[in-house]
Each structure stands twice: as C-alpha cells, then as structure tokens.
C-alpha cells in the first residue's frame, strides 16, 4: 500500500471521483494541497478571483452536468467568503464538495491567524460537514462526502482539513464502497401510495402537474414528459423546474408563482387533483397556503425528502422516493390499469385553460424608442434557437429570463432560486461553460448584480470561457424599484444605480469584447454578432440600456393568493376565476 501525505490523498481522492475541475483560491492553510495539485495532471484547477465565485462556478458546473462540483478554499476569510456560495447551493439542493483549509490541529480554538470555525459556520447551510482530525480518516471522508452530496436530496458537503493533516502521511487506499448506517436515502416509492395516486388521476376532472427542481436534479424530465403526454394533462414548472418539461410543449402552461403566468397560477388554484413532483410549495410559488387551499383539491406529493412533504401544505397522498423511480412506477401502473382522467371533463378543463391562455399574460408593449428587456430575452431565444445554457443573477432580469426564454431541456437554466444570490450569474456561466465547452452560454444579468462578482471577467479570460453577458441595464436595482413603486409610494430609496462604470471599457480592460446597445433596432444584430462565428471564442459583454420603468407582470403581492395577481395593463380588471359558462366550476368561485 502506498504511503501518501494528506495533501496527496486529497488529490488522489478527487481523481477517484473523476473530478475534472476544482475551482479554488490558495492560501496558507491549503499550501500543501496546492503543492500536490501542482504535481498532478488528473484535474484542472481554476483560479477564481474571489472564493464566492469558486463555489458558484462549481455549483453551476454541477447544475449543467451530472457531476458533483468541487471548490477548494483556504481557512478563515477563504472559508467565510465561500459561505454565500454554499448557502446558494444548499437552498437549491446542488451537490458540491467544498474543501476548506483549517489552521493546524494544535492551533484550533486559540484564535490563530486565519482561523474560523468552518464546521460551525457552515453547519446550517450544508447537507453535512466534516472536520478531519486524522489523516487516516481522510480517504473515507472523501468517499462519504461525494456519496452524501450526490445521493438522496443532493446538497453541499464541506470537508475542513487542518494543515497538519495535509502534511501527515499514512497508507492510502480509496474505499470502493461506503456504508453509512444512519443515512439511507429512499429510492422506490411505496407501491400502495403510487396506486392511490393513479386512482386519484383517474377520478380527476381538472388534473394539474406541478414540477420543481427535484425533477431536474433527479433526472426525471423524460418521465415527467411521458406522464404529461400520456394523460394529456396541463403542466407547470417552477423557477427551479424550468426545462423539466419543454417550454414549447403544448401542455406547458408556463412558470407559476409570484411572477408566473395567468394560466399557470389559475390552473394551480382551481385544479382538483394536483401532482407535485420534486417541488416544495414554497412561498414564492403558492404564496399563502390557506388561500391556495381555499379551492379544495387532492394533492399527490412526490419527493425524495420526507421533510419537504407536509411542511407548508398538507397532502393527501405523500410519496417519498426518487422522483424518477416513482414516476416510472406511476406511468407503469397507469398503463397497466388503463386509468386516465374522464375525457369529457379533461376536454372541458383544457377549454378553460385555453381561455386563460388567450389574453397572454406575458404580452408587453413593444417600443421602437427604448429597449424592452423582454424583447432582449425573446431575441436571445431566437438567436440561440432556444438551445443556449442561460445563467442569471437575481432580480427583474432573472424573472424575464425565466418567463421569456422557453427552456427546452433540464439543466439549461441556471439560477439562484432559493437563496436569490446576486453575483451568481457570471461565475455560474463560467462553470457551465467549462462543463459544456461546445455549448452557447449566456449570462443574463443587470448592472447591479454583475458588479457583485465582476472580477470574474478576469478568470473568464484566463480559462477562455467565451460566455456572452447580457446586462439589462436599467440604471435601477429593478426589482427593488418595482416593490418601492408598488408598496412604498415610489420612494426609490437607494435603488438607483449612480456612478455606473463604462461597461464596454471594463470588458475591454479585461481583454474581452464590449458593446453598448441603446436602440431597439440594434438588439438582434448585436446578439447575432455576439453569438456569431466571428466572436465564437470571445467573451462578449453587452450593455443593453433598457426601459427603466418596466415592471415584471404578472405579480402576486405578499399575502395574496394565486388568483389575486396584479396583471399587465391589457388584462387589468380581468376576472381571476373560471369562466361562468363552465359547468364544472359552479360552486368553486
């Protein structure tokens, strides 16, 4: 058996896990590990410019592939800088292994230079974490960390390694399997519960399928699509679930929630049987539980995490299991029994949904004077044939990207849905590009968000990630401004972006290509040029000067129900109930 140092063991474990990229930043406590990295060729290290970006890049690398992302940071400030990234991954259930250096074992607890209790700091925002006190535990810890991160409901795992452990040597062998007696993530759903779900679907008059990020992470897109098509049931995706069902599928009614479409929100409110797949009924989706349940419905909830079930909403048929397994079994049961919703009732439900679709809640007023942000996203879709991987930051631009880019497949849309982390988009685009070197990657951002991790333009240059940055620059923190307009009497407190830099010059200073676009007529030609063969190998930063007064519609205000949307101008005053001539809804409204 080989004798290796702890640092060498770290790099060997990463090799065993087929790690392709490690995103990191060196420092005192991890110097041994960096030396071992220097002496190996199995994976590539990506030197970011800030540890937060390392974790976001590793996160998006994972989101856009089927692999665990890996980040490496030093102790103290390196570790604390990683915290926002870890929390972002935790909220969206992304599998990561974050390795942090720690001061030597003997110095722990003595307020040593660059010491921070990383296990303590990260505890509430990790799936699990480890402090490795003995080099002999290191290999098994890595095996456990990768297994825990990727299995069950995925999530980030932190491994904190004191410097002396990276120096100490021991016999090295990577365990082939690992058994954690206290951790047995579920796979198959209960067959009895699956039969009950099939039964409910067969009795449904107004069935609806609600698909969240769990279907994306769980690789269940094909099963979702099969179920939807087989039963011809309308389907919505959450912000995290976009792409699980093709955004151009005729059964797709758009995203639901705070900025969901009229038809998706009303179908969610007035359905009688709801199948929730890898979704968690969170506040930005269903708003207030009581309001959501005020129209009676039977709910089937499929999730790998039992604690997601009955957390905000009580359900009738809970099914704990891997969504892919459960859906495969559910489809099999439906096929076997031939159970399906009553054809007449379903036709009537579709008639209703088509009525709700008619006014088109995503319609906006085009302009030849000023660039409409929605127009930029629609043009991006057109120019990239709906095939680009799109990352975003957080705010209005994020919602417009989610609404107007019709994502065709899972893992194509990468955003910080749960934590809402500004500064996510650019490092995420970088990570996604490294995972998908041949893909077109667009980062939709704003002039506020981009400045939260703009230093990564330098990393993008170093590692030749030719992402296209579309900054929807409205000179406001747009979503803050929108809320201040609606709820704070247009007192735009600290939401105006003053002293903005010249973004074209910034892009150029970092060695990239920059464009400024002010005329709506230039949107398409500039995007075509940016994504064209001439700039294929270049990062292009496009500063779109967009309409500063544009708001995101529909919108559900805090405390209101799914049928109490603020609608765009052309739909103001429209009833948010089923239409009166619809016989099935007599007693619903």
């Amino acid at each position, binding site marked *: 058996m080989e004798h290796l140092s702890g640092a060498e063991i770290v790099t060997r474990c990463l090799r065993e896990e087929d790690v392709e990229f490690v995103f990191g930043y060196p420092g005192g406590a991890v110097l041994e590990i960096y030396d071992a990295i220097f002496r190996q060729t199995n994976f590539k290290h990506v030197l970011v410019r800030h540890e937060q970006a390392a974790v976001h890049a590793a996160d998006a690398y994972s989101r856009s592939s089927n692999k665990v992302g890996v980040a490496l940071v030093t102790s103290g400030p390196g570790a604390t800088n990683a915290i926002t990234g870890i929390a972002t991954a935790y909220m969206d259930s992304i599998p990561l292994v974050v390795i942090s250096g720690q001061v030597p074992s003997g110095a722990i607890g003595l307020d040593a230079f660059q010491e921070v209790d990383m*296990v*303590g700091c990260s*505890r*509430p925002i990790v*799936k*699990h974490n480890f*402090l490795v006190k003995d080099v002999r535990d290191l290999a098994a810890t890595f095996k456990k960390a990768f297994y*825990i991160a990727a299995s069950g409901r995925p999530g980030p795992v932190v491994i904190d390694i004191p410097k002396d452990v990276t120096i100490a040597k021991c016999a090295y062998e990577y365990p082939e399997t690992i058994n*954690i*007696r*206290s*951790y047995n993530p579920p796979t198959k759903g209960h067959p009895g519960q699956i039969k009950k779900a099939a039964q409910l679907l067969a009795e449904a008059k107004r069935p609806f399928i609600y698909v969240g990020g769990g279907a994306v992470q769980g690789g269940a897109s094909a099963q979702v699509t099969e179920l939807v098509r087989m039963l011809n049931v309308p389907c919505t995706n959450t912000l995290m679930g976009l792409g699980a069902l093709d955004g151009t599928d005729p059964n797709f009614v758009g995203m639901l929630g705070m900025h969901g479409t009229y038809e998706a929100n009303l179908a969610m409110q007035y359905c009688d049987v709801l199948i929730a797949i890898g979704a968690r009924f969170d506040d930005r989706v269903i708003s207030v539980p009581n309001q959501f349940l005020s129209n009676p419905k039977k709910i089937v909830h499929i999730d790998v*995490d*039992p*604690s997601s079930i*009955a*957390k905000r909403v*009580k359900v009738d048929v809970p099914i704990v299991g891997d969504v892919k397994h459960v859906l495969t079994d559910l489809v099999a049961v439906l096929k076997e029994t031939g159970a399906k919703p009553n054809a007449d009732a379903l036709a009537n439900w579709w008639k209703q949904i088509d009525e709700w679709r008619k006014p088109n809640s995503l319609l906006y007023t085009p302009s030849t004077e000023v660039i409409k942000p929605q127009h930029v996203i629609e043009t991006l879709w057109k120019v990239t044939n709906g095939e680009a991987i799109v990352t975003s930051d957080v705010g209005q631009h994020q919602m417009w990207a989610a609404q107007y880019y019709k994502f065709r497949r899972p893992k194509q849309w990468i955003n910080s849905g749960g934590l809402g982390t500004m500064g996510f988009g650019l490092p995420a685009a970088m990570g996604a590009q490294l995972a998908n070197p041949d893909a077109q990657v667009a980062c939709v951002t704003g002039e506020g968000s981009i400045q939260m991790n703009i230093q990564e333009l330098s990393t993008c240059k170093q590692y030749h990630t030719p992402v296209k940055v579309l900054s929807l620059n409205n000179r406001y923190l747009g979503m803050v401004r929108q809320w201040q307009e609606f709820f704070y009497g247009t007192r735009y407190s600290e939401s105006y972006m003053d002293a903005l830099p010249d973004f074209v010059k910034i892009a150029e200073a970092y060695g990239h290509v920059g464009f400024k676009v002010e005329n709506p007529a230039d949107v398409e030609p500039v995007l075509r040029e940016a994504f064209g063969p001439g700039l294929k190998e270049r990062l292009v930063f496009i500063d779109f000067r967009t309409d500063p007064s544009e708001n995101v519609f529909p919108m559900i205000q805090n405390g209101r129900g799914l049928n109490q949307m603020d609608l765009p101008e052309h739909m103001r005053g429209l009833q948010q109930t089923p239409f009166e001539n619809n016989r099935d809804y007599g007693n619903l409204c």
Partner: protein
Amino acid sequence: MRHILSVLIENEAGALSRVTGLFSARGYNIDSLTVQTTEDPTLSRMTIVTHGSDDVIEQITKQLNKLIEVVKVIDLNEADHIERELMLIKVRAAGRDRDEMKRMADIFRGRIIDVTEKTYTIELTGTGEKLDAFIKGLDPTAILETVRTGASGIARGERILKI
C-alpha cells in the same frame, strides 16, 4: 402539546450541536435535552422534551431524521412510556429547618447525600412534576441551589429503540 423525543445518534464530535442548531434555526422549542452514550459506545441517546402542534412535531421528527448522524428517532408520546428526571438540591438545614428538611426528603423518597452543619444536599428522582412539587413544598428562602438533569425517557413494555 409536550412531546418526548428519543434520538439515537452517532457518538461523534459536533453531533449535539447539529441537533441544537436545527432547533434554533427552525424556531423549535427545546424544554430539556439530555444525552449520554449507550451500551454501544458508538451511539449516543438523547431525550429531547419539546412542545408544539402535531404538524410541528412531525416536522421536527423529519428534520432530525434528515441529519446524517441521526440513526433513529421515536416520539415516546406515541405509546406508554416512563420518564424520570434527577434533581440535586442544596437546602438550608439549620435549627428548626433541619428536621423539616429530613421529613420532606422522606415524603418525596429523596436521599440526603451530603450533610454539613447548616445544609443538606438532597437527591430526588421522578417526573418533572414531582420535582416541581418538591420545590413548591419548600420555603423558597431555604433553597440554596438546584440542579436538574431534564427528563430521560423510555417506552414501557417491549417497545425498544435500538438499531
């Protein structure tokens, strides 16, 4: 409603703080918490007394189970169970009080485990209510110091918590 949760957890550094961190982060109540290793030194057993609606208790149980190091969780209130708490109480035992303290200890089946000229230290075991009743029965000015362990619980009969 008050619930007693019994938790088997890996006997590892930091495991306790994962449990207490979970309770504070999610706004659950801990009325008391006791922990010690079991006959299997790799496992610790906790007794957590908490209160909340059925929905909250269900979430607490699920969230505890989600912690990687938690092996098993049971809610003792789901069936008959026994709970005991230990209290050590130091009381003034001079003059007239001395006999009265001895009588009180006897009535509550306590044991005097340390004696000085002016004080008794009494060991008392029972449910939390019994310990409360003992304290109430004393002249408050006579109580010098109390220390209580919080409840430990076990199911009655053949129901067991083991891996």
